């Protein structure tokens, strides 16, 4: 049945938190009330990626891109756009105020993106398998089951050059091949959906917006290596993704696309969901497998690798969500199509969660080789609030900071390592002049220390020591010797930790020391925090020109650090001041300043 309009409402977690469901319900109500219920199809889709501008509503066929929509806008959207055919200009995305009718392809945020992994997000209703199938869904599975051998599939992946997207970048074809070649045995396929990097939500959006892509991919892998059972290990903090996966699995089973005798091929494959329980370390593959086994989620030494000896000691292919999402496209379009995208060492695209002090924060997918500058300025729109770019952090708590000098680096696995960071899973956090780089390092270390499983000495003890030293530096007790200590412990952790959590935990510290030594010196030698972030290092002073001697601040000061006669300029005694900031809040004349 042909509809007059298709209204796509973003149903990603971020937009849902901003009442996307209410918008959706209201649109349905309004269409009914205004008599166009039969002519309009309203669909809740996955994440559009332009999270800064959410909640997002896209109306087809005009391809009108409405942003920052509120539930009360539903009435006008129906009456104006649907019924009268007039776009609601005030809700359209406007990059320049003079432009109206901004279509998606005109939006700079999207222009340099190439969406393979997120191909269906924002287009289909993830809770309707028919929509996935309509967009070439499950064609790859059909091809893999009936037209290709296991070897063919491995060859296709090898041609494609797909490398794991979880952070390590291991060649996917090789991993699958190890398991395929392992002796005839019970084998397993696992999806690592325990996305834990702070600020990363690529996997969440993929699972919420296009769960079938992962199911289909895992089934293809099962056929390739000879496994009949798969597990999706997903963090319990992703209830919407879990819900969408459960619906998708149910629908796939109903259609004979999952379970026994898939599509009549004689091949059985089914998937079980396992929930995480709040441990970042369970994103590490061996810890994840042990968690599935019912043990404490602690890593075990590798070799042996899971591809050979994984879940319950059996050959196991474990890949990240994003890696899985690439598989169906590689099978349908071919490895040669895929390997034309990207760089020599990294084929295909990468999804990044672009966040921080950026104008256009959101989920972006770009071909490998896109430069950091292009992502931050062309796609990201540059630094918010006209502030100055300071650094961009990639790779989450495992990565390093990248400065202005390296912004023209084309992104791929190798290049990011060469400039002292890493791809990681795709987190990209932009910092401006107001961010204290020492505080950033401290934040990441606090995270890794909190999440450390505690098994190995270098990470358990070393991490805490690094953390304590940074804490000391940010409260003004740092010494020059700290540089050496941070370096020594960092090296021991990099080389001696059992897993990548500990091995990469020192990266933020070591990288920020390398690029921003002056800022560290300011904290250690001058006992000052240039950006004004480290509370204990900021100085509150009274500007003599603005102070009228009203004594309000002196009266409010909890430690009586301020002295001054009525109508005389007041002074703050630095040795007594506890930097609580009450004086600044109290002063009606803006005379209290922070340094």
């Amino acid at each position, binding site marked *: 049945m042909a509809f007059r309009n298709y209204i796509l409402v973003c149903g990603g977690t971020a937009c849902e938190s901003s009442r996307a469901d209410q918008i959706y319900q209201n649109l349905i109500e309004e269409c009914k009330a205004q008599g166009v219920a039969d002519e309009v199809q309203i669909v809740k889709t996955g994440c559009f990626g332009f999270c800064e501008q959410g909640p997002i509503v896209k109306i087809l066929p005009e391809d009108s891109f409405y942003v920052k929509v509120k539930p009360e806008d539903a009435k006008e959207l129906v009456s104006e756009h649907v019924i009268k055919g007039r776009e609601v200009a005030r809700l359209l995305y406007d990059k320049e105020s003079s432009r109206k009718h901004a279509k998606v392809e005109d939006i700079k945020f999207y222009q340099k993106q190439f969406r393979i992994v997120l191909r269906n997000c924002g287009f289909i209703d993830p809770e309707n398998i028919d929509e996935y199938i309509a967009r070439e869904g499950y064609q790859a599975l059909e091809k893999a089951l009936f037209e290709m051998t296991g070897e063919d599939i491995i060859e296709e992946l090898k041609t494609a050059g797909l490398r794991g997207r979880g952070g390590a970048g291991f060649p996917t074809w090789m991993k699958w091949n190890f398991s395929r070649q392992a002796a005839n045995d019970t084998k397993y396929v696992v999806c690592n959906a325990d996305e834990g990097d702070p600020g990363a939500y690529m996997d969440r959006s993929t699972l919420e917006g296009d769960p079938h892509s992962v199911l289909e991919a895992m089934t293809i892998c099962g056929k390739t290596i000879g496994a009949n059972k798969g597990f999706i290990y997903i963090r319990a903090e992703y209830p919407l993704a879990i819900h969408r996966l459960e619906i998708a699995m149910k629908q796939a089973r109903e259609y004979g696309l999952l379970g026994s005798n898939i599509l009549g091929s004689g091949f059985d494959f089914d998937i079980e969901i396992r929930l995480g329980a709040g441990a970042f370390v369970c994103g590490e593959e061996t810890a994840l497998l042990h968690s599935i086994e019912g043990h404490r989620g602690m890593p*075990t*030494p590798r*070799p042996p690798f899971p591809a050979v000896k994984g879940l319950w000691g059996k050959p196991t292919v474990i890949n990240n969500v994003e890696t899985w999402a690439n598989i169906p496209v590689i099978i349908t379009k071919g490895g040669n199509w895929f390997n034309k995208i990207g760089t020599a060492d990294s084929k295909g695209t990468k999804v990044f969660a672009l966040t921080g002090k950026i104008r256009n924060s959101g989920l972006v997918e770009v071909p490998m080789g896109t430069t950091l500058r292009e992502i931050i300025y062309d796609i990201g729109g540059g630094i918010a609030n006209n502030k100055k770019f300071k650094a961009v952090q990639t790779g989450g708590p495992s990565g390093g900071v990248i400065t202005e000098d390296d912004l023209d680096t084309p992104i791929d696995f190798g290049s990011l390592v060469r400039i002292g960071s890493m791809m990681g899973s795709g987190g990209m956090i932009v910092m401006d002049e107001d961010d204290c780089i020492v505080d950033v390092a401290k934040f990441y270390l606090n995270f890794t220390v909190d999440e450390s499983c505690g098994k190995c*000495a270098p990470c*358990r003890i070393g991490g805490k*020591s690094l953390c304590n030293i940074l804490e000391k530096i940010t409260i003004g007790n740092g010494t020059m010797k700290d540089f050496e200590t941070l370096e*020594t*412990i960092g090296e021991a952790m990099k080389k*001696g930790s*059992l897993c990548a959590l500990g091995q990469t935990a020192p990266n933020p510290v070591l990288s920020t020391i390398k690029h921003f030594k002056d800022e560290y010196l300011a904290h250690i030698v001058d006992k000052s925090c240039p950006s004004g972030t480290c509370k204990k290092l900021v100085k509150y002073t009274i500007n003599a020109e603005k102070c009228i001697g009203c004594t309000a601040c002196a009266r409010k000061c909890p430690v009586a650090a301020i002295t001054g006669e009525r109508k005389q300029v007041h002074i703050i005694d630095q040795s007594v001041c506890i930097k609580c900031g009450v004086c600044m809040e109290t002063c009606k004349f803006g005379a209290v300043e922070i340094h």
Partner: protein
Amino acid sequence: MSIVHVKINGIPVEVEEGTTVLNAAKKAGVKIPTLCYHDDLKPFGSCGLCIVKQEGSAKIIRACAAPVSENLSVITHDAELFEVRKTILELILSNHPSSCLTCIRNGECELQDLAVEFGIREQPFESRISDRPKDTSSASIVLDPEKCIKCGRCVQVCQDMQGVFALEFIGRGDGTVMAPAAMLQLEDSPCVRCGQCAAHCPVGAIYEKDETDSFRSAVKDPNKQVVVQIAPSIRVGLSESFGLPAGTVTTKKIYSAIRRLGAVAVHDTNFGADLTIMEEGSELVARLTKGGALPQMTSCCPAWVDYVEKYYPDLLDHVSSAKSPMQMVGAIEKTYTAQKMGVDPAKLYTVAIMPCTAKKYEAIRDEHMHSSGYQDVDLVLTTREFARLIKSSGIDFLHLEEEEADSPIGEYSGAGTIFGATGGVMEAAVRTAYHVVTGKELEHIEVESVRGLSEVKKGAVDFDGTPIRVAVIHGLTHVKEVMDEIRAAKAEGKQAPYEFIEVMACRGGCIAGGGQPYGANDELRVERSAGLYADDKNSKVRCSHHNESIHKLYEEFLEKPLSEKAHHLLHTSYQDLPVYKA
């Protein structure tokens, strides 16, 4: 098994497929430093000291866990690895108190050894020591969280080797501790006091309750007459404490040392072992001929008894009612021996030197252990405590004259002495039960099928036409298979396919008990057992029922096996215990 060719620091080595880099290096005469690694356990990978480099790659691998691959070439020692290892050690030391001088492991500590190896001269990192108090709730074992270096051995031992699960990793990251679930005290946990945790701990975080001072007070006390018995395993275990090769039998020097320490009489638990065979053997024959729960299971191991009471209380009627050899000797000492010596039993102070930490609890377990009217065994000292006692008493052990034990509780048969090895109790029992059932003497008294380190040994001995099916199990984690068989058969009203089962909680048997000298691994277990089997071979009398002193005891005192007196003094009963005392 195919052969793999590797290079260790350029030295070519050939090893079997599946060998770890650590063991391949040993073959090349290269000792890679380790701390959390132990031969008994699966490689854990927590300390990070065994890291080595793969030549031609930046890859760093843990030698303890990495299997060799064809043409693998590793560098085990260079400046970079030394620095990293040293830093890791310094980090571990920053979490560990510097109170070596007052620590029970002073001189016998793996962390001290590493500090020496790496030439540690300073502590560059801020010291952070745990302030959690000691857990002294158990009669046998002390947990000292201050010293714990989180190597994980104790948890692996308790869960994987012993299947007891008294210890677990609690918490996460810097706050991880090794403790019973819900941070309960050890005494309220499933702990059976086997002491394997203490035997594997590299430092002074878990150790036996040291009661050597009680011994010192007793021998000084004019109102006490100290009598000491030594377990079978002591005669082959103590040697290592004095630098002798593992398995060296030093029985007669030990007797001498005991007298020098101030004991008025020296007895041998092996006599008790012979006595146990008489009682338990008769009990088995009674069950076989007149009826009773079969298979019968041995009861000389107190950790095993505790394990049945907690985990298999439905099978308690299978456990022999006979006390352990130690408890039998204690009961006899306070009655028969006291009489013979003309000493008031109230003044007799009975000491037992045991390879076992659980025995400290056995001695005070219930009213049966006071069958003489007094506490039958007043004090249990582990081999390690005994070694410390000797060393602190000016006794030059290696140069002692050999002496004999006192009669009759010092006389033993070869069957008694092999009680310390896994399969020993079974073999001893078979030698005598055969005679009791058939009236004949067993021709091949060395029953090979029950010897060795195979975890569950099954066999059948032909009792002149009647097959007696036996199972010998060591390491508590391995009892499950057979216990499940018994339960399954019971559910069908049948008997499982065994008549007699021997269980020893500790792998290898008591010779590798929780109280023996440190460092037990399978090589040592074999050597220590070999010492006992040699002692058996050298014994004049090989079977318990040929021990003249045993006959004398029955004639003069006990009347006959399973008599009323024997029941009162030499038998006990059991109870259903909760796994956790919440």
